[in-house]
């Protein structure tokens, strides 16, 4: 019963940690937009955590520049299990307009397992909420397998 309780709670209280890996700031603003009164994801239990140690879902924005790659990987490895990695915007998936640049090391899926991709430049708030809701379901499954 206790296991079930923890599993249910995991799906209802996902805390986000946001990493900017050289993003143009468009996606970062959109991520904050989903916390505003119009979309208010706090009603689903989402909260922005200040430290990767307290996060459940890591949201990565930006094309993963060479400078930021080691920091991104180190931050992700500090997130306790069960964790879920979400890429936001087209940049961390494909490189977007930065593809082929000498300073870009992406996509992120070359280095870590990515659970959810949210496409768009920048994605709509509805799409972000949809992607994050999918991530909470994956999080719950991961907790169930622990």
């Amino acid at each position, binding site marked *: 019963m206790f296991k079930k309780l923890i599993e249910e*709670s995991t799906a*209802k209280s996902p805390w986000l940690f946001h990493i900017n890996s050289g993003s143009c700031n468009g996606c970062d603003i959109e991520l904050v937009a989903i916390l505003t009164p119009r979309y208010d994801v*706090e*009603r*689903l239990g989402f909260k*922005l955590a200040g*430290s990767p*140690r307290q996060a459940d879902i890591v949201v990565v924005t930006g094309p993963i520049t060479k400078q930021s790659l080691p920091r991104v990987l180190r931050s992700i490895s500090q997130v306790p299990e069960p964790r879920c990695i979400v890429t936001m915007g087209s940049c961390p998936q494909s490189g977007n307009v930065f593809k082929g640049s000498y300073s870009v090391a992406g996509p992120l899926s070359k280095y870590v397992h990515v659970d959810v991709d949210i496409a768009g430049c920048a994605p709509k708030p509805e799409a972000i909420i949809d992607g994050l809701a999918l991530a909470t379901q994956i999080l719950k499954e991961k907790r169930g397998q622990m």
Partner: protein
Amino acid sequence: MTSILLNALQYLGYILIFPGFLFCFVCGMLLCGIDRKLVARMQKRVGPPILQPFYDFFKLCGKETIIPDAASRTTFLAAPLVGLAALVVIQLFVPIHGFSAFYGMADVIVILYLLLIPALASILGAAASGSPYAGIGLSREMVTIISCELPLVLILLAIAKTVGNALGTGLCFSLSAIADYQLVHGSLITKARMIPAAIAMLLVIPGETGNHPFDAAEAETEICEGMLAEYSGGPLAVFKLSHAVKMLTLTSLFVALFLGGVGTGITAVDGVVVFILCVIVTAVSISFVHAVTARLKIEQIFKYYWTVVSGLALVSLVLAWYGL
């Protein structure tokens, strides 16, 4: 023999169930949830469900606990438990209407010291985690404690003098005497000279619990949650629980000190009445202040408490001293 055993069982019930651990857990978390909902509604948001703090707590219990290499293991893990235990002990001493689990055993001075322990425990835990962010956080927390302490002492002195004057004993620090005084003479907040002290206490509550705008020590956007930067999983859950219980403790202390004498004499009913009063105090002193202010800098917190809030408390103290 049986009477000793029954007594022991009764006290165990006090400590573990009401008004001890279980009561603190459920009511503190509910209070925290109501606070979050109220803040959300004031900001025109839907807000999380009232049970959200429970979900957060159980989720954190199911997470992996990471202990940094640089941390001192025992202190890092023991600190949150010590803080929580101190808060539950305060709850045992704070009278609910006429009822107090350990009647007449502690006065407000003990509460003053016990209130320091959770803050000190979080400082110790932060220092043991070996993180520079926690280092900045703990230095800010120390300043916040010092800021809150002066007005709190002045408020308690003003209350002690008022009650002491009526009883003819000079200064009266006994919590049960303060509760009994209010049963006879009505709540202290109805006395005109106590109103500045009550306002000061309402302003001290968010500072003591580390809520907005006095949360420079846990500023999540600038210093990565400050003192909690390295905490994850179970110990973090206990810290979150401590924060919730601290809200309950301070608001119920306010109710006991200023809104005493409201109740029926039946302990179960009074428990509910006190909880409702706690919710109202939280709404005024924590939620409303949270919704309308931005975070203050640490030197602003210090200045604010030692001038405005201490000044209010001092007005009450002077009025009480001359029996006006």
